[in-house]
């Protein structure tokens, strides 16, 4: 069988080779029309780009003899010359003899505006205008704001309308504009199509503008490039045969992609969103070894080699806008590296973008453990990016809970590798997520202050902590659900309530849901704590108390408990009951009720019940926190 397949392949190769010989003979003997026909046959036998290019080149040498000429011009913002041989093949197949003009790379504006340009001298019958979205709007891959998007939408509309108008004023050619298409991954992930600054909707808007403008002109068309590109993928991804046989539509390849994308929804639902990306430097954020070649010798800049690293850094920076933290772990001398982080003109990521930095010669597993401790997040929330396979293997073996990415050898694939990960998705983006990176930066300043303060209490006073506590309302629900599903350490019962349950609690007269917002002199922490309380006949039962790890150690949890206590006392409740369910991770919460004066009353199925009599016992707010309560 193997042998037989080789035979068939060899047979096909032989045929192509024979056809080339036929062509050469015809060309050599000056039988031009027959030579053209031989080329037609050749590209049918071998539809590869290489053969199409060979045929196109040969036709120029042969000289044209065919009838029905057509003059085709291409204006583009990127290199589209490789389209010409394929278009040539298609024209011949249709019985046309084409002539082509491809305007110099990215000079479409001059070509259109200058009446004596090569374009007009060529006298095209049809002009394809291919402007890439990234060229029209270079900021598109760097999380543009709503304002940027609105501005560039108007600019693109104006640019295309102007080009078409000027072109039409100087030429009778049919004008075909390619749809601007965004082919990258959205920096917003699965949230893209529910945001005002999402790129999918914006791309739709841009193209709807163009379709409207061009649709009103008989000489201008919009080529549906997205559909065309989709078809290229669909060719392999869709199968009518499977549909006829089994009412299936997707091939295995497409199903694999679909399954992978589906995990972008499953992972955040199950609290598996990774929170921190630890990156190496040499070979990862830039090319080359800075300790050997110096800051000016590394590969990092607007042209290759180097542009691939700039692009990769942009993708990492985009992650921070979703609340993902970045950290550096590099074997280097700080003196070699810091000038790059601080001053290199083409660095996208700067010192302030990293929540933690470890530049030393120690074992990377140790460094990662330390970073986890410093940032107060679990190692199972970490992603590790390092171009060195030895370091990756070390982390895989020593810290299997860290997601170690098999970074490709080719740095031009770094960005797409990162963007193909389904581990950074959120089901809702909260203000806290967007501010997280800057909050951790403020944390570093707080720690510096801690070191300079004498006692812990002096330190806490110097932070000027403000806590605001209120009854939860509808707009708090997304953040509440997010915290309930990802908070592990300070979480009394780890009950993973979802949106419908929380909405019910918020609306229910039998439940009280409290939210805690905290700020200090370095900035706002946002909504970082919550409590769910159920009113029973003679007792108030605290179903859950949780606190973001960012504010652990400030005693703000006491403020939450004090608020519940005040309300219970006001309603003359005989008992305040706090439930505690121990887990592998919530050790830091184990003594929460004890240290606030609760007594362990019993334990059922691993759930402890702690009680306190609000009529007798007392809970006080910490002296260093300015508390503001709103609502009853």
């Amino acid at each position: 069988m193997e042998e037989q397949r080789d035979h068939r392949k060899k047979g096909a190769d032989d045929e192509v080779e024979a056809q080339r010989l036929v062509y050469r003979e015809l060309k050599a003997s000056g039988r031009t029309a027959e030579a053209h026909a031989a080329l037609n046959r050749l590209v049918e036998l071998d539809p590869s780009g290489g053969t199409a290019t060979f045929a196109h080149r040969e036709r120029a040498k042969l000289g044209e003899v065919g009838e029905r000429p057509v003059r085709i011009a291409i204006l583009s913002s990127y290199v589209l010359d490789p389209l010409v041989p394929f278009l040539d093949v298609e024209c011949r197949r249709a019985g046309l003899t084409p002539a082509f003009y491809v305007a110099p790379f990215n000079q479409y504006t001059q070509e259109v505006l200058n009446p004596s340009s090569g374009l007009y001298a060529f006298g095209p019958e049809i002009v394809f205008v291919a402007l890439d979205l990234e060229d029209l709007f270079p900021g598109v891959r760097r999380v543009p704001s709503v304002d940027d998007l609105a501005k560039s939408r108007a600019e693109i509309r104006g640019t295309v309308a102007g080009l078409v108008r000027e072109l039409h004023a100087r030429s009778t050619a049919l004008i075909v504009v390619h749809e601007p298409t965004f082919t990258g991954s959205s920096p917003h992930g699965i949230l893209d199509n529910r945001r005002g600054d999402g790129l999918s909707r914006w791309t739709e808007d841009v193209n709807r503008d163009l379709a409207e403008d061009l649709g009103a002109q008989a000489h201008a068309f919009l080529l549906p490039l997205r559909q065309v590109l989709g078809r290229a993928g669909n060719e392999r991804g869709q199968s009518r045969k499977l549909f006829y046989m089994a009412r299936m539509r997707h091939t295995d390849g497409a199903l694999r992609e679909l399954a992978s994308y589906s995990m972008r929804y499953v992972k955040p639902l199950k609290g598996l969103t990774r929170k921190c990306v630890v990156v190496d430097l040499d070979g990862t954020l830039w090319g080359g070894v800075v300790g050997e070649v110096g800051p000016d010798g590394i590969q990092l800049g607007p042209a290759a080699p180097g542009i691939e690293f700039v692009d990769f850094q942009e993708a990492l920076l985009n992650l921070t806008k979703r609340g993902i933290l970045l950290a550096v772990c590099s074997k280097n001398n700080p003196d070699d590296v810091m000038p790059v982080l601080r001053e290199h003109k083409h660095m996208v990521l700067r010192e302030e973008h990293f929540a933690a930095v470890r530049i030393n010669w120690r074992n990377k597993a140790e460094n990662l453990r330390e970073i986890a401790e410093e940032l107060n997040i679990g190692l199972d929330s970490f992603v590790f990016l390092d171009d060195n396979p030895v370091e990756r293997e070390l982390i895989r073996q020593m810290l299997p809970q860290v997601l170690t990415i098999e970074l490709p050898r080719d740095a031009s694939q770094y960005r797409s590798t990162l963007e193909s990960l389904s581990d950074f998705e959120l089901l809702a983006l909260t203000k806290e997520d967007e501010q997280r990176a800057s909050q951790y930066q403020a944390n570093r300043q707080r720690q510096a202050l801690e070191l300079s303060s004498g006692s812990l209490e002096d330190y806490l006073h110097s932070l000027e902590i403000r806590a605001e506590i209120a009854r939860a309302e509808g707009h708090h629900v997304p953040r509440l659900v997010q915290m309930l599903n990802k908070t592990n350490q300070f979480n009394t019962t780890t009950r993973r309530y979802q949106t419908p349950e929380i909405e019910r609690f918020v609306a229910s007269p039998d439940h009280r849901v409290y939210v805690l917002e905290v700020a200090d002199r370095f900035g706002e922490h946002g909504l970082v704590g919550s409590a769910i309380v159920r009113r029973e006949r003679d007792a108030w039962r605290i179903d859950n108390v949780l606190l973001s790890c960012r504010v652990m150690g400030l005693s703000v949890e006491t403020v939450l408990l004090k608020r519940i206590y005040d309300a219970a006392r006001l309603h003359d409740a005989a008992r305040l009951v706090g439930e505690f369910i121990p887990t592998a991770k919530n050790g830091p919460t184990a003594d929460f009720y004890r240290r606030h004066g609760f007594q362990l009353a019993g334990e059922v199925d691993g759930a402890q019940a702690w009680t306190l009599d609000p009529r007798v016992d007392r809970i006080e707010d910490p002296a260093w926190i300015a508390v503001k309560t709103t609502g009853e």
Partner: protein
Amino acid sequence: MRTLEEVVSGVFGVEPQSLDESSSPQSVEGWDSMGHVNLVTALEQHFNVSIDIDDVMEMGSVGKIREILVAYGVRA
């Protein structure tokens, strides 16, 4: 290169020795309509052929499959 029996046994998880030319959806557990789609996909990939849909419908036994594959130039 695996034999036809090995491909069929791989798809349905049965011993290759338990298959013969008359093995069919009636005698092989799991060879239902969905199993048939999986079998065709496996045959296409393994023998590097694209099987026409009317042939797919004819593939009612191991013997019949062999006959069809031979017609595609596969020495199955």
